[in-house]
């Protein structure tokens, strides 16, 4: 059988990678400048820096964008270099687990001691 192509997908992923790239280009410099401008010295300072809700939401959005962006990129890499389907699916799961776990971990850290 010839390889079946024409799955009518791909535009969504491509668009998502573009959109998250835009979000990251805006969010990351803003957050980095805000943090570096007044780098907290101690634990209380770090707590205060992350106290406003909008700061936490912004960090979470940045992490989510990064995870989605990385997912599309990693999926492309694996499609290029890992041909056996079982291995590719397993690696997809590893990537999804790592990215989702990181975002959940960040969320837990940000909201742990409110």
């Amino acid at each position: 059988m010839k390889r079946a192509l024409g799955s009518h997908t791909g535009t969504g992923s491509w668009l998502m990678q573009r959109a998250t790239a835009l979000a990251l280009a805006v969010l990351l410099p803003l957050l980095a400048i805000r943090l570096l401008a007044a780098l907290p010295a101690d634990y209380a300072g770090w707590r205060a820096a992350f106290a406003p809700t909008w700061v936490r939401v912004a960090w979470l959005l940045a992490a989510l964008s990064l995870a989605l962006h990385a997912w599309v990129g990693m999926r492309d890499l694996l499609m290029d270099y890992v041909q056996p389907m079982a291995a590719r699916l397993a690696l997809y799961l590893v990537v999804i687990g790592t990215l989702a776990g990181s975002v959940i971990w960040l969320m837990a850290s940000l909201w742990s001691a409110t």
Partner: protein
Amino acid sequence: MRFRLYRYAPESGEKPFMQDVELDIEPAGRMLLDALIAIKAKDETLSLRRSCREGVCGSDAMNVNGRNRLACITPLSELKQPIEVRPLPGLPVIRDLVVDMEPFYKQYRSVKPWLVNEAPEPEVERLQSPEERALLDGAYECILCACCTTSCPSFWWHAETFVGPAGLLQAYRFIADSRDEDAAARLDNLEDPYRLYRCRGIMNCVDACPKGLNPTEAIGRIKSLLVKRRV
């Protein structure tokens, strides 16, 4: 001048090797193809394709000092010695500098590179306005030499499934044509993670094209049309 030529004769049973060749030739005003023909006159076993010898037919595409170009329009004086000449990368080598173009042509055919128009034939030609015609500039000039497609890593990895820059440029040429009625089906044919979206926009194709065309831009326009259709 000093040359290093890729030599491969499958029936000899030997592995491909690089052959050092010295040729007494005045580089001023001469092209690489002139030198290769002079070398072939001395050693007729050297195999290469060439036809029009003026950059129109696209037969003599080869990898010269690491870049895909047409030997007939590559001035000898521009090249650093030893001039290393290899067959186009990413396609099976038949002999020396001659590659099997079938994987390339197969992808080209897959985009149906002809006008589809079911309307009754008009008495006169199907006319275009100058603006409609201008949309084809930069898309119709392709000579199918395969310099771009064989410089694309995505095509090296996915020759079976990725259309490649030349094929996608031709796909866009027919999507953009005001006389063609098949744009929707053409977009359907391309909307696939492999056929279109293996292009990551690294622009090797733009760098390689001997006609100065921009396949990456055409691919971007196809993507824009797909997004427009979707959102």
